């Protein structure tokens, strides 16, 4: 697991943690059943408050990304494939929305954007 916390970011620290862990789970960088560090260990490693890491884990648990097994620790939850895909689609959508908004600001037409997208899509292959 990789986590980088910025002190100058506008996002609260717990949100930075949840975002990063979430995207790592979605991208399969963290696989099902993989153990996560304890909240106290994480707080120490990131040099942040225990309450912050606790809150981040609680959010992730609520969203179903991780499971806390009493006495054993915290693990990446078994993901519902449908849900996961939906969530992944969501992130793609979010990123595209950002791109569309930027394009609109620059006055790029839909046609132009589409051809841009298809070039990029093929390049990646």
């Amino acid at each position, binding site marked *: 697991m990789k986590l980088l916390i910025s002190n100058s970011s506008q996002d*609260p620290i717990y949100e930075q943690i949840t975002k990063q862990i979430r995207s790592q789970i979605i991208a399969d960088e963290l696989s099902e059943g993989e153990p996560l560090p304890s909240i*106290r260990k994480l*707080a*120490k490693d990131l040099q*942040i*408050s*225990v*309450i912050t890491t606790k*809150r981040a884990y609680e959010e992730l648990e609520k969203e179903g990304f991780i499971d806390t097994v009493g006495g054993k620790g915290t693990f990446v939850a078994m993901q519902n494939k449908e849900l996961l895909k939906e969530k992944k689609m969501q992130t793609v959508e979010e990123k595209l929305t950002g791109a569309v908004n930027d394009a609109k600001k620059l006055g790029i037409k839909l046609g132009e954007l589409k051809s841009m997208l298809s070039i990029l899509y093929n390049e990646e292959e």
Partner: protein
Amino acid sequence: MNYALEVNELSKNYEGFRLDKVSFALPEGFIMGLIGPNGAGKTTIIKLIMNLVMKNSGSIKVFGKDNREHEIEIKERIGFVYDNPNYYEHLNLQQIRNIIAPFYKRWDNKVFDDLVTRFELPLKKNLKKFSRGMVMKAAIAVALSHHADFIIMDEPTSGLDPLFRRELLDLLFDLLQNEKKSILFSTHITSDLERVADYITFINKGKIVFSNTKDEIMENHALIKGDKNLINIETKGYFEGMRINEMGFEALTSDVKSVKKKFGNSVIIDKANLEDMMYFYNQKQNND
């Protein structure tokens, strides 16, 4: 929830200073930072907890027990570091260990030796010849060597270089890996606390300004900057203290949401750090 410390309506009168009905609580397993300017009452609170001075009213519970009735068993489980630990001056560290160790049932020479090695402290040198940082390290080593469950530190970082302050914070994190350990830490160097503290209690002029989790405090407070024409009798109520000059106003709010609703995009909203809060709240109290 178990509490390491519960302070309730605590008052203490001095000539020219009064600790006024102070209440706050620290749950077991967390770090609380006690902040405030010099002379705010931080040391008085710590002395009251340690029973060095007598309260006029109110109650103090440590580990859920009254701190006077159960004084000995409580102190057995407390590790303390005071602002000016010059009490050791004419002795060397080994003598100090020989003096202090027998007082604690759970004293552990191995822990002490490890800390002394980690801090690179000489055992046979008079503490008179130690630098302030070294004296502080020695006091910390003594405080942490009897497996205390509650560490109380009064200004442990004042006068210390940033390198050692980092080292101390690391040490505190190590301690907190055990969820039964709690730490109360008074300081006026708030940047230390912005990293580690779980709870912040801000005291000024003998009164509690706020006591809450650091995250909530950081989320609810913000620095607001804008045109000074926005300030009138009605809008003043949104702020905890402000500074107005020709360029505009700068103010602290403890309720970012309401400010956002009220002022929208007409103001700049910046993160406020603890130092900003101390500054503006102090200004507000001066004006009241």
